[in-house]
């Protein structure tokens, strides 16, 4: 712009000077030939300069338009990325514009492709984060202990159950070596996990005994390797399912089957042997025959009692048992059962004593079931009492509480304190007393079920090793139940 302006000034000064020189010459020599020649020369110079001026003006205009176009392109480049440079004007500028437009289009396309890729990546990141959160939520909600390690045996993830089992806090343990987090008494798990990861197997399973909070437990431990996109093992996941209870139930069931079959076979052996003796005429006289018949009868009853125990336990548990309650006197029921148990007690040389009947001890119960409760308590008391010992049955009426209480006290072997809370559990048999007598572990469980589940009563037990035990139960009085019903 400045150059154009200067050119205009120079051209204007030259034209003005030429006109002045031509005019002055013409004025001084007016009327002369020289004057005309000066004027002619001045005119020629003027025309030349006018032509030069026109050229300069055109050049200036061209230059200015070029500069303006370039400036507008620069402005466009600075300002707007969307519009295209419009063609027109100088072909060189047009070519430049086209090149810029093409390059710009290419960049625009590339940018939009990148933007699409970024969006896809963002979606993938969000999905991945959601998946990670889901995985975390699943792992944390699993009750089994779950541990995830990387290819260097460093902890990646662990749930609360795992922290509790292995005694670490996950938040402060991430990316630490598993071997450093888990105490040496559980190092067999670390070794197993590491071995499984190195073996690159899909899933490996092993039963493992580990202590949790000081208690010995059994776990079903499953380890699966984690593979990356190149199918290389990049870690492992271990799930430890606590099977202590299942093992215990399975063991108790096996014991139960073994005990029941033994218990069933014992009276059956007597029945078989005595009947064979009778059939073979080995019972010489009438008295012996009667004795044999009596044994067969008693053993058949024993067998029936056992079968009833087994059946009733499952019936009560499944809620299928038919209960027919009627008002009965507990003392009378006890007396009936005492008669039944006496022959067994005499065999063992155990004295069994009852007490005088109480008049107002009517309870609203299923007679057969409560008879079974009494006989189970009595037979247990006799079974676990040594020869020469005694079993005493007491009944009392607590009118204030509105219940009757029955206590069966023996001078037997007693129950260790640690085991007393389990004596009413199904299939449970007191370890140290297993040798003392045979049993199925069902009798006391049945007592509890009948008293508490069917009759809304309560069972209780107190015991002292070497001194004896007292088992008993409380039942609501019939009168009290009537009042409640009203």
């Amino acid at each position, binding site marked *: 712009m400045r150059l154009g302006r200067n050119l205009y000034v120079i051209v204007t000064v030259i034209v003005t000077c030429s006109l002045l020189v031509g005019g002055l010459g013409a004025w001084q020599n007016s009327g002369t030939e020289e004057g005309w020649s000066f004027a002619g020369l001045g005119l020629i110079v003027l025309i030349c300069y006018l032509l030069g001026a026109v050229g300069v003006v055109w050049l200036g205009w061209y230059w200015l338009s070029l500069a303006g176009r370039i400036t507008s392109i620069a402005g466009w480049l600075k300002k707007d990325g969307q519009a295209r440079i419009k063609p027109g004007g100088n072909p060189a500028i047009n070519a430049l514009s086209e090149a810029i437009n093409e390059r710009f289009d290419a960049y625009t396309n590339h940018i939009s492709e990148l933007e699409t890729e970024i969006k896809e990546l963002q979606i993938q990141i969000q999905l991945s984060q959601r998946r990670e959160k889901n995985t975390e939520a699943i792992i944390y909600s699993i009750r089994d202990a779950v541990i995830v390690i990387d290819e260097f045996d460093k902890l990646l993830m662990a749930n609360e159950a795992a922290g509790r089992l292995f005694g670490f806090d996950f938040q402060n343990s991430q990316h630490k070596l598993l071997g450093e987090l888990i105490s040496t008494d559980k190092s067999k798990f670390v070794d197993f996990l590491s071995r499984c990861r190195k073996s690159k197997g899909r899933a490996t399973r092993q039963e493992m005994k580990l202590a949790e909070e000081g208690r010995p437990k059994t776990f079903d431990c499953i380890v699966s390797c984690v593979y990356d996109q190149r199918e290389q093992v990049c870690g492992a996941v271990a799930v430890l399912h606590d099977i202590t209870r299942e093992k215990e139930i399975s063991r108790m069931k096996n014991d139960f089957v073994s005990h029941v079959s033994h218990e069933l076979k014992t009276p059956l052996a007597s029945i078989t042997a005595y009947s064979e003796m009778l059939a073979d005429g080995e*019972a*010489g006289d009438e008295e012996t025959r009667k004795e044999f018949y009596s044994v067969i009868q008693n053993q058949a009853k024993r067998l029936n009692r056992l079968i009833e125990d087994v059946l009733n336990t499952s019936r009560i548990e499944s809620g299928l048992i038919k209960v027919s309650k009627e008002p009965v006197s507990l003392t009378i029921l006890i007396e009936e059962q005492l008669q039944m148990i006496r022959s067994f007690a005499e065999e063992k040389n155990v004295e069994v004593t009852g007490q005088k009947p109480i008049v107002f001890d009517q309870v609203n119960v299923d007679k057969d079931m409560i008879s079974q409760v009494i006989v189970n308590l009595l037979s247990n008391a006799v079974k676990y009492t040594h020869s020469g010992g005694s079993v005493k049955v007491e009944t009392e009426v607590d009118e204030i509480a509105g219940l009757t209480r029955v206590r069966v006290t023996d001078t037997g072997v007693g129950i260790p304190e640690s085991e007393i809370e389990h004596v009413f559990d199904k299939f449970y048999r007191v370890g140290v007393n297993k040798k003392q007598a045979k049993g199925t572990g069902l009798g006391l469980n049945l007592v509890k079920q009948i008293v508490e589940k069917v009759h809304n009563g309560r069972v209780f037990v107190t015991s002292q090793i070497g001194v004896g035990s007292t088992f008993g139960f409380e039942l609501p009085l019939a009168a009290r139940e009537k009042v409640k019903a009203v």
Partner: protein
Amino acid sequence: MSEKRVLVVDDEIHIVHVVAIKLRNNGYDVITANNGAEAFELACREDPDIIVTDFQMPVMTGLELARKLRETEATRDIPVILLTARSFAISQEQQDELQISECISKPFSPKELLGSIEDILYQKELVADN
């Protein structure tokens, strides 16, 4: 020939009773015990020709009794018949190790038990004669 003495051991007194009658009816001298410990004491004192014992008993089981008999010089060679209400109560290895002549499962026939006792005592006599 003197009466053969049989020691019958079971915590079920009915079983002891019926086996004793069967054996006595067939000319045997029968002594009885209700558990392994009692039986061992009797075996040492009375020197029976054969012992018929239950497997599962309080105080001392039939298996423990057999082991103790084999460990004691005086009772080492007394044949033992094991009565058991449990299937697979003992393995063949245990039976061989403790020299248990026969395992009879409950319920059993007194007649068959008598037959087994006679067989075992007969074989014992043959071995002694040779």
